């Protein structure tokens, strides 16, 4: 089993005719993902790699039974593309786009609360259920099917941890990169709840980073609601306060002692979650759980 995406996921790619959209559509398809449609306004009727393109997500969902969308739309138009997905029959939208203005995302977030559609991202690598479906830009070859769930705010750090797992023969149910922006759809708590409900996920690796309070909230959730064991990693222990390090999310606010690596590690520790000093140590903890 898996969470959110699997063999039955039928993907529409928003922005399929763009460079990135086209490249990753090929990659997703060659991984075996069921890409059934593209959606680009004004490009309806065309084909990209044999995939029919529609003018709207609505049409793609209606004509091709698409139930998930992956969004490769430039930042200035991406929030509108996400809103289009949220207001369509697709059940899951995965926004890869980096650099969406924060206020656009605040408006998207307000709509998320009234939409039945889940959002992963933006500014994320996507989601993969090894051997079944890959929605996004994750390098498929490092993943392997298995019984560990993975959720991470960071892209390449995800790959690193997955690699540490796969190299020692530990496969994954599903891996989700939730993205490092200040405002995102699916967060740690959402993803952990899905993994807790998935009978095939025997352990979860969770990669956080400094900034915000998401890891603290995740720790509280784990302590209160999870039986599945979780191992954690927090990037940015050495980041100086107030310095922006790549992710908009990775700013230590300094206010009230939260948001720092220390507060996150402490919170996880309090919830009984072992935190690795290195990515490889996370794999050690996971291995010990199994």
């Amino acid at each position, binding site marked *: 089993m898996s969470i959110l995406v699997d063999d039955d996921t039928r993907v529409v790619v928003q922005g399929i005719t763009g460079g990135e959209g086209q490249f990753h559509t090929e990659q997703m398809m060659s991984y075996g993902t069921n890409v059934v449609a593209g959606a680009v306004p004004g490009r309806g009727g065309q084909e990209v790699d044999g995939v029919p393109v529609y003018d709207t997500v609505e049409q793609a969902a209606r004509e091709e039974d698409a139930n998930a969308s992956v969004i490769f739309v430039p930042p200035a138009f991406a929030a509108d593309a996400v809103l289009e997905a949220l207001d369509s029959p697709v059940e899951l939208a995965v926004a890869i786009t980096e650099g969406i203005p924060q206020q656009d995302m605040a*408006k998207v977030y307000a709509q998320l609360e009234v939409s039945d559609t889940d959002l992963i991202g933006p500014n994320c*690598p996507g989601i993969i259920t090894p051997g079944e479906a890959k929605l996004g*830009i994750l390098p498929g070859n490092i993943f392997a099917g298995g019984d560990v769930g993975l959720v991470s705010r960071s892209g*390449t*750090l995800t*790959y690193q941890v997955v690699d540490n797992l796969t190299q020692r023969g530990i496969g994954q149910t599903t891996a989700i990169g939730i993205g*490092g922006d200040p405002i995102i759809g699916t967060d740690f708590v959402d993803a952990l709840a899905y993994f807790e409900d998935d009978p095939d996920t025997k352990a979860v690796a969770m990669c956080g980073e400094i900034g915000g309070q998401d890891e603290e909230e995740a720790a509280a959730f784990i302590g209160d609601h999870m039986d599945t064991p979780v191992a954690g990693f927090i990037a940015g*222990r050495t980041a100086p306060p107030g310095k922006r*390090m790549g992710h908009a999310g990775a700013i230590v606010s300094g206010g009230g002692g939260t948001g720092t690596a220390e507060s996150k590690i402490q919170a996880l520790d309090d919830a009984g979650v072992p935190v690795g000093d290195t990515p*490889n140590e996370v794999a050690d903890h996971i291995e010990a759980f199994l």
Partner: protein
Amino acid sequence: MKLHEYQAKGVFAGAGLPVPESRLASTVDEAVAAADEIGYPVAVKAQVQVGGRGKAGGIELVENETETREAAAAILGMDLKGLHVDRVLVESAVDFVDELYAGVTMDRAKGEPVAMVSTEGGVDIEEVAAENPDAIAREHVDPASGLQPYQARRAVFEAGVDREVATDVARVLTTLYDLWAERDATEIEVNPVMVTADDDAVCADAVMNVDDDALFRQSELAAMEEEAAGDELEAKANEYGFDYVRLSGNVGIIGNGAGLVMTTLDLVDYFGGTPANFLDIGGGAKAERVTNALDMVFSDENVDSVVFNIFGGITRGDEVAKGINEALAQFDEIPKPVVVRLAGTNATEGMEILNTDLVTVEETLESAVERAVEYTEGNQ
């Protein structure tokens, strides 16, 4: 992007907010002329983007020309928390009876904007927030609707702002919110909003940070962006388009993806070294970016060794290897030892290409960092 106080006040004034009359000055004479035009008393305020300027001696209240000369001479050229002061704002001094705080920011935990007001103005608001959180009235805002007048009034009255000035302060708050929304700000703060003896509200300070991702539609604000003052390397990083932060250690770090680069820094620390920088070349980097990144890290005199850690997703290992080879080919002698670790997409192809005469190759993240730290040990 942070606006300077004088820039933010210009934006405020354009939105009809009450700000004191002011002039920007780069020399003592200009400061004196500005003070004459405005009329004494005036405040002479260092235009650098740090908090706590007052305590650090960056703001002086002056009554006459002699004092203005003294203050301007002292402040211009001053080093304020590591930043060089090359301009001062000369501003009409407000005769106030009370100081309030007003601000708008994003509450990322709720994904919603929040407008705040407090009667505890003129002091460090983060301290107030930590020690007496109820002293700050907060209104969360539906970003589609914006801050409604009744919400602003509710916040202002809840905060305990004097009734005589309350509706004015409520209007300041809604205007700040509207600015925040229209100008794609991430944060706007006025600390203090001064209340005069005539019950007028005046925005005596102005902090405004703008979303870098939205500058494409904020041309007026984008035009206010200046070359990063001070650090030459950070300016260079800006030019190359890297996410770069200079730190105080001696292990140069290059990687792809913020989380992985932060992790590399953490590992340097874990193995007993100190990171010299954070440098994220981003996703899908081609050979030229790799060359530029190496060029930057080599330019940092503090750097004694370099660890190059790439986990390919969109970024391809062969492109990275090509870039490393090209960058190192320029040198007769490699200036600083370079440890390379490639994994993920096309890592094998990259390893084959890589000129291992010039770099040390490691298989794992941990071993790569450990080796780079070792290389610095002779130089410590």
